[in-house]
C-alpha cells in the first residue's frame, strides 16, 4: 500500500525506478506475472518476491480472449480465470501486498470497462497501482480513459512497433506515461527475438522519446540482455517468466540472472 500522491506514486514512480536502474549501470528489468497464477492463494507473496528482483512489476489481468498473447500467457490466463481471479480481487491483492517495486496493471480493455472508468482510477491508485498497459487500446481510443486516470497520477504506457510510421511514433511517445513499450517484433508475446533488428528500431524510438524506452516480446536469456543493454533503458520479461512459474522453478533466481547479466559493463 502506497500513498496516492503524484510525486511518489503513479507513472512517475515507474520512470524513476527505470532511471534508478540505469544510474546503477544496467537496463531496468520489468517482470510480468499473470495475476493469481500459478497459485491464487500465494499471489501476494509471489508479487513481493518478484518485486525484490525486478525494478517494475507488470501484473496481467487475465482475459477470456487475450488476442495479443501467445500460448504461454493464454494458458496462464485461462488457469487464473478458472481459479476465480477478477479485477476487484487483483486490486485487493496488490493493496494487501507490500511490493518493493512499482506495479503496473496490464489489462485488455473489456475487464476495465466492466469495472467502470469512473471508479478505476481511484481504486487502482488506492491499491498502489502505478499505471496501465492496455494492448487493445490504441491512442485513437484512449483519450477518455487517460482523462479518467490522470487526476490519480496514473497514465497509460503506449506501444511502438517495427511497423509504426515516424509521425505516429512521435505521437505515441508524447502520449505515453512511465515509459515507452517497444515491441521489437510483430507477433504475439513469447515468440522469438531478433537482437540486430531490435537495435535499429530501438535507436529510432530513443531518438524521439523523452521517456525511458523498454523493449519486450521475446526476452528470455541473459545473453539477449547483454546484447540489448546498449540500446534500451529497460527490458520486459513476460512469457519466459511465466514458463518458469509453470515449470515450478524459482522466478527470483531467473530474474536475478537477467538483472546481473550486464553487471558493470554498461556504457
Amino acid at each position: 500500500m502506497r500513498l496516492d500522491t503524484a510525486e511518489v506514486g503513479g507513472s512517475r514512480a515507474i520512470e524513476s525506478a527505470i532511471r534508478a536502474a540505469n544510474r546503477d549501470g544496467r537496463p531496468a528489468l520489468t517482470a510480468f506475472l499473470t495475476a493469481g497464477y500459478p497459485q491464487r492463494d500465494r499471489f501476494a507473496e509471489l508479487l513481493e518476491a518478484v518485486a525484490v528482483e525486478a525494478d517494475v512489476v507488470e501484473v496481467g489481468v487475465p482475459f477470456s480472449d487475450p488476442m495479443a498473447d501467445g500460448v504461454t500467457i493464454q494458458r496462464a490466463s485461462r488457469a487464473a480465470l478458472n481459479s476465480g481471479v477478477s479485477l476487484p480481487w487483483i486490486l485487493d491483492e496488490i493493496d494487501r501486498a507490500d511490493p518493493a517495486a512499482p506495479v503496473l496493471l496490464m489489462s485488455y480493455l473489456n475487464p476495465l470497462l466492466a469495472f467502470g472508468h469512473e471508479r478505476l482510477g481511484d481504486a487502482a491508485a488506492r491499491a498502489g497501482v502505478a499505471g496501465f498497459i492496455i494492448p487493445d487500446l490504441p491512442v485513437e481510443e484512449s483519450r477518455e480513459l487517460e482523462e479518467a486516470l490522470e487526476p490519480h497520477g496514473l497514465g497509460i504506457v503506449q506501444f511502438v512497433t517495427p511497423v509504426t510510421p515516424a509521425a505516429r511514433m512521435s505521437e505515441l511517445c508524447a502520449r505515453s506515461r512511465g515509459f515507452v513499450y517497444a515491441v521489437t517484433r510483430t507477433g504475439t508475446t513469447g515468440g522469438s527475438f531478433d537482437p540486430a533488428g531490435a537495435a535499429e528500431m530501438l535507436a529510432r524510438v530513443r531518438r524521439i522519446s523523452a521517456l525511458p524506452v523498454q523493449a519486450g516480446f521475446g526476452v528470455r536469456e541473459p545473453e539477449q540482455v547483454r546484447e540489448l543493454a546498449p540500446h534500451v533503458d529497460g527490458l520486459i520479461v513476460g512469457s519466459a517468466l511465466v514458463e518458469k512459474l509453470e515449470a515450478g522453478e524459482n522466478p527470483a533466481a531467473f530474474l536475478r540472472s537477467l538483472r546481473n547479466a550486464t553487471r558493470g559493463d554498461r556504457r
Partner: protein
Amino acid sequence: MTQTTTAGIDDLLAGRLPDSHGRFGAYGGRFVPETLMPSILRLETEARRALADSRFQQQLSDELEDWVGRPTPLTRARRLGESWGAEVWLKREDLTHTGAHKINNALGQALLARHLGMRRVVAETGAGQHGVAAAAACARVGLPCEVYMGAVDVRRQAPNVLRMRRLGARVIEVESGDRTLRAAIDEALRDWVSDPLGTYYLLGSAVGPHPYPWLVRELQAVIGREARAQLQERSGSLPDLVVACVGGGSNAIGLFHAFLGDPSVTLLGVEAGGLGSEIGHNAATIVHGRPGVLHGSRSLLLQDEHGQIRETHSVSAGLDYPGVGPEHAFLRDIGRVRYTSIGDEEALEALDECSRLEGILPALETAHALAGARREAASSTGRTILIGLSGRGDKDLGILAETESRDGDPA
C-alpha cells in the same frame, strides 16, 4: 467507452456513419494492438478508394454476375404463405456460388487483397461457409488462403472442411479458448499481428475493428438492393416486414440497408436463442448482452460482471458468437430494427417446414429467420414478408442426422 449517442437514422442514411472514428453512435471504433493500426488505417483508405473507383466496381460486379451467379432470384413462397396467412418472399442467397451470402463479402475482399498487393490471406470461420467462400474467392483471384476454425466447428461442419481443402486452402484447427468461432477470430488476429504488412485478414462478418463493419456491409448491401428492386417489380410495393438471422449480422445488415429509409418497412433481426435465456445457453447478444469491447470494436457482448466473454450455445455454428456487429447495436438503440431470438427446437421445426412446403432446405442459421417470420405472421395476418434466405442447409446434414436419430423420424 461511454459516449452519448446523438447520431440517428438521418446520419446513417446520409452516409455519415460510421464517422471518422469508425463509430456508429456509441458503437464500433478500432480497438486493436498498436501493431495492427498502420494496416487498419491503410485498409480504410484503400477500401474507400477502391469502392469509389468505377473500374474496381466494374470488376466486382462482373465477377458477381459471372462467377457468383448474381442477381439471385426472389422466390415467392406460396405454400409457406398459405400456411402462415402472409405473402412470403425469399431472397435466395442459398443459390449463390458456394451456397451462402458469405461469398459476396469474400469475393469483394479477396479482390481488395490482390489490389493491395498482399502475399496471403487469412480468414476465420464458424459454420465453414465463410471459410469455403474465402477459399473459393482466393483461388479465383490467385492468393494463398489459410482458414482458422474452432475444433468444435471442425467436427460439426466436417463437409465444409473438406470443401475448403479441395479449394486449396489450409484449414487450421483451433484448440484454444472455446474452440468455436470466437477462438478462431482470436487466432486469425494473432496471425495477422505477426505479419501485418503482408497478410490480408479477410473477416467474414460485419464485426471487428473499423473499417470491417462498414466494408462488409458495403459488400453485402447488394442483397437488399436487389431484393428491394425485385419485389417492387414483382408486386409493385415494398414489404411490410423484412426478416434476417443475426450472428455477427452480415447478411442482415446487407438485406436491411436498402430498407432503412422506408419508414413503413418493419425490420426484424433474429438471434440464436439456443436452449434458453440462461447465460451460456444461447447466442442472443442483442437480446441479452451488455456493451463492451471484443475483437476490435465496441458493441453488445455476452459477458459476465467482470467483463469476461461467456461461452455461447446454438445448434447453428454460424450464429454461435458472443458479439454482434456494431451497426446492429446502433440500430437497436435508435429503435430502427427490432431484435428477437428463436431457440434451437423452433429453428429446426422451421427448417423442416420450409423444406417440405417449398422444396428448399435452408441453413440452420437461416431457419432462425424463418421461425421469426412465422411468429410475426401469426401475430397479424395478410402482411408481405421478405425473408433473407441466407444459405443452404447441405452443410447441416450431419447435425440434422443427429437430431433425427435422437428424436426418431421427424414429424
